[in-house]
């Protein structure tokens, strides 16, 4: 597959008189290939939006190499800008314009046929509200309008920064369906979001950023597999005795409430065989697979210090430095 977005070693440091020097992105890599729905995850202040802004030429990178649809960005971004639909954070629109007029203005500026405006409004479910003023829109409707503005160009690549912001559950589901249908037509989607369940549902690939560095990347199932401890929840009549029997069989098992947690199990039939042979019949044997949220929280260190108020820039958290585990796209887990 051809690379649609390539970022290698992106670095960006902000300097300000008040706050001094702040490293926002520190040698970040990202690879998005054609046809992917690629999730881009990271805690607040981890460098997601800075990365997207740098990619789109809104922020000047201090180092690294970027390309979009095969063209170096931002130098030759204008060549492919007509094929890239993007929203970065929540774009602001004129409150006294209607949704239709807002899109018409953008279409005119970008040389897109005006007929495309109605199609984009239809796609995001604003067809019947397009003639209302934007100031009367809810947050979710404004977000839909933003997505419509990104879809106006009929893009080959769609970059969406937090597209689910302000959407109700039905809206989130519609957005998910929209992204899937776009991907089905060959559009590559890069979507950043905090709603990890959503990312897991719609994305086939994911990149996780923390403190400006990539901490995981690859197919969603591969990233999750890298954090699979092969744990099982086991319910039996005598949990204490069951633990002893499993430990005797060189399995790691602990009592967890009224059940057992058994880890390091490659074949779950071993558990039922060991217990069954001693007359303990297994009532429940449930595999505990990691979800994206647990992997995200583990990788970004956003959960372990939950007794300490978490700071947006990550201060007070374990530093995701080079010694931490990094899951790589094709290589599994690197120490």
């Amino acid at each position, binding site marked *: 597959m051809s690379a649609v977005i390539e970022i290698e070693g992106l670095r960006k440091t*902000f300097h300000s008189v008040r706050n001094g020097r702040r490293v926002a992105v520190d040698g970040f890599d990202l690879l998005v290939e054609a046809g992917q729905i690629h999730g881009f995850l990271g805690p607040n202040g981890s460098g997601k939006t800075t990365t997207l*802004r740098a990619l*789109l*030429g*809104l*922020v*000047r990178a201090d180092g690294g190499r970027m390309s979009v649809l095969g063209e170096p960005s*931002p130098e030759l*971004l*204008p060549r492919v*800008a007509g094929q*890239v639909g*993007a*929203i*970065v*954070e929540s*774009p*602001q*629109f*004129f409150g*006294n*314009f209607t949704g239709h007029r807002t899109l018409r*203005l*953008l279409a*005119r*500026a*970008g*040389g897109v046929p005006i007929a495309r405006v109605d199609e984009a409004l239809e796609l995001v479910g604003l067809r019947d509200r397009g003639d209302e003023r934007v100031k009367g829109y809810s947050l979710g409707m404004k977000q839909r309008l933003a997505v419509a*503005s990104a879809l106006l*160009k009929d893009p080959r690549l769609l970059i969406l920064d937090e597209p689910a912001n302000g959407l109700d559950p039905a809206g989130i589901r519609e957005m998910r369906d929209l992204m899937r249908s776009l991907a089905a037509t060959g559009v590559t989607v890069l979507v950043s979001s905090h709603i990890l369940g959503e990312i897991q549902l719609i994305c086939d690939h994911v990149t996780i950023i923390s403190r400006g560095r990539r901490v995981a990347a690859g197919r969603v199932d591969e990233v999750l597999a890298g954090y699979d401890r092969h744990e099982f929840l086991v319910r039996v009549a005598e949990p204490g005795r069951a633990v002893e029997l499993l430990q005797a069989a060189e399995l790691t098992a602990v009592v967890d409430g009224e059940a057992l947690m058994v880890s390091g199990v490659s074949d779950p039939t071993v558990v039922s065989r060991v217990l069954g042979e001693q007359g303990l019949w297994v009532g429940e044997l449930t595999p505990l697979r990691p979800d994206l949220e647990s992997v995200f929280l583990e990788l970004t260190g956003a959960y372990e210090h939950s007794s300490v108020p978490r700071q947006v820039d990550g201060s007070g958290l374990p530093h995701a430095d080079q010694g931490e585990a990094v899951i790589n796209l094709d290589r599994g887990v690197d120490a």
Partner: protein
Amino acid sequence: MNLVRAEIERLSARRFVQLMVVLLALAFAITAATTLAGSHKPNADELNSARAQASQARQSMEVSYQECLARQSGSLPPQDTGRYLPADCSEIDPIRQEKLPIAADYLPGVFTFAQQARPLLYFLIAFLVLFGFLVGASYIGADLNSGGVVNLLLWRPRRLTVLAAKLGTLLGAVLVLSLLASVAYLATFWVIGQTAGLPGRLDGDFWSSLAAVHGRGMVLVLLTSALGFAIATMGRHTSAALGAAAAYAVVWELGGRLVMEIIDARRPDQLMLSSHIGAWLTGEARFWDPQICAGNAGNDYCDSFYSLTWGPSLLVLLVLTGGLTAAAFAVFRRRDLL
């Protein structure tokens, strides 16, 4: 071209622009209405009386001048006639006067277009200068602040092109509006002069002089529009331009002038932008400099004034505006848009 069309629509849709246009129309309507209400068409008696008074005034000026010459040549005894007779009689030579008394000067309550057109035009230019500066600043300032520029750059990722399109659209729109407003404004007062006052002497000299003031005014309007745009671009906010203008006025025009007077600096006026604006608009501005006549023994006439002419003043205004605009483009080209 598409970008410019889109920018024209954005600019015309701005509430602030619409408000300023309404204010312009309101100021225009109030001025026209009060002029109309305070003027009447003079009857024959009023005209005859005014002409007689004007003629008498011109004669009186001639008599004073002749008296002055006679006294200078010694053919008249130095007795007090109650008239002001300067040492240099050319000062009161009627031919050298900028303007001789005319009938319109003696027609109270009668609007005379030829006499009032220039001050009315100055008022319009002043309003348009304010309009251009504020609209120029708010147009880019609000867009930078609200993310509108970012939105546009996602569509057209060419920063200089986008900024140039905005500036070009602004200048074009301000010029068109200024020309339309000027035509409507002057035409309205011309009609008032024709119907409820006097047109006055509207010869070629009058129109060419008025056109020159108008042309210079339009240049000034464009320069201040670009200035507001450039400062707001550099400061990212509309308020940056307003703050810079207020700070300049208070710190330099008032404070700086005061300090220069205290330390007896020579010709402080030529360091003030307001002096150059005045010189450009009127063609020439004269300022007092006591040191000009310091070496004069008193035999020759010396009026202690020096002039700023429109040429150097235009250069000052162009360099300032051009420099700030170039700086704004340079800053915008490299700036992180957050």
